């Protein structure tokens, strides 16, 4: 069980870090973009919210399989397949939790509008400088919300990890899958412990998000 918890924490942390970095430019473009392409990309990003995780898992499995065109660059590096590997889980989790990172950031960037960035440009700050010194700190609470949501959502995912991970102990066996195994094999006491732990963790995470949100609504400082 400890092994599963450790794998889960590692997976959720890595997913959170990668996803915040990936979601930032995506959310920025979605907040600033115009026209049809923005709606198309927006819908694609939101897709994991409505798709059954098994569908996502199925396609990822096909993509990760040896011989799949997406694996060609990895095969050259000596890793013919990402299926049933920890790395594969990370990629799956990033896609699965994408909307939970992009949406809060996009909302924050849309809400701040162009005004603060224009003021920064008028103070000789280039676009990147202005992003890191103005937009990022102004959106910091949304980053906290996004991080907590992604972390918690990754801990809670089941369908995707089961299909592409295969529950290999120490590698791809995470708590949500472990939970299933414990119940299946009637290890009720352990199941109780894990379940209660997850309930407490999830509640604490959501509480954090709501407290951040309320503070953000009150304004800065």
């Amino acid at each position: 069980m400890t092994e599963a918890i450790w794998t889960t924490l590692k997976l959720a942390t890595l997913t959170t870090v990668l996803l915040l970095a990936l979601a930032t430019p995506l959310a920025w473009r979605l907040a600033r973009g115009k026209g049809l392409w923005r709606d198309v990309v927006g819908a694609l990003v939101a897709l994991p919210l409505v798709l059954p995780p098994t569908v996502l898992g199925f396609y990822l499995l096909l993509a990760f399989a040896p011989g799949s065109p997406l694996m060609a660059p990895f095969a050259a590096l000596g890793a013919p397949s990402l299926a049933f590997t920890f790395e594969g889980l990370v990629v799956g989790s990033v896609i699965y939790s994408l909307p939970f990172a992009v949406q809060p950031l996009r909302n924050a960037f849309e809400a701040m509008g162009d005004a603060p960035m224009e003021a920064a440009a008028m103070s000789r700050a280039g676009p990147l400088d202005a992003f890191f010194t103005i937009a990022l700190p102004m959106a910091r609470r949304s980053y906290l919300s996004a991080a907590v949501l992604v972390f918690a959502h990754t801990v809670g995912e089941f369908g995707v990890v089961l299909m592409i991970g295969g529950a290999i102990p120490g590698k791809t066996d995470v708590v949500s899958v472990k939970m299933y195994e414990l119940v299946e094999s009637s290890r009720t006491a352990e199941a109780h412990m894990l379940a209660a732990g997850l309930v407490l963790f999830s509640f604490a995470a959501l509480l954090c998000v709501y407290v951040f949100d309320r503070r953000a609504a009150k304004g800065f400082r």
Partner: protein
Amino acid sequence: MTAPNLDMELAGDAYGRRFAFSCNLPLSGVTVITGPSGAGKSTLLRCLAGLSRLPGRIRMGDETWQDGRLFVPPHEREVGFVFQDTRLWPHMTVRETLTYAARRARGAVRVGEDETISLLGLAPLMDRSATALSGGEQQRVAIGRAILSQPALLLLDEPTAGLDRDHRAEMLSLIARLTGVLDTPVLYVTHDAVDAVRLADRRIEVAEGRIAGVVLDRPSDPLEGLSAEARDGLARAALAAGLPPA
């Protein structure tokens, strides 16, 4: 006092309407831009700053900011901009805001940090959050931020618009004092005719998306001794008479 030439020839559509700005005049002291609201005064300033883009050409002194495909991005133009809505950053104190601009300033130093702070009376506000200040205080900070970026051209977009009558008068005399000290040409957008009379070395009139006229000489103040209301009325009447029919 340096008097760089502003040579501008812009024409095109933006915000769903047509604009055509063209002028070629030396800028020194205060140039007031007047015109009815919606005439295109702010668009004119935004084009000069590079925040909006209309096809054409802008030359300021010996620098070309825009010509054909060349478009110098806003942060590389030596322009200071005071926005009507102040646009102070909510996550910074007054001190951090001023330092932000001062640290990124390029080119000749025209005004010092201490001088700016005392000129604008910002000393007691330095450690307060920029957005926790009153409207007039916020606008003073915004002016400080703009001049500490050491601009070669200072653009003010109706800085008194959000203020009540008393603070308006106070802000006006502050801006008058400021422009007396600064060696930087100022473009000052206002729809208030009294502002125009008090501050202007020359006046650009904008109407229906184009520059309708340039009045070059500083008017001696013929309204001296009249009440503020009378001056206001007179100036409005004078301005209205000079405007092309809408």
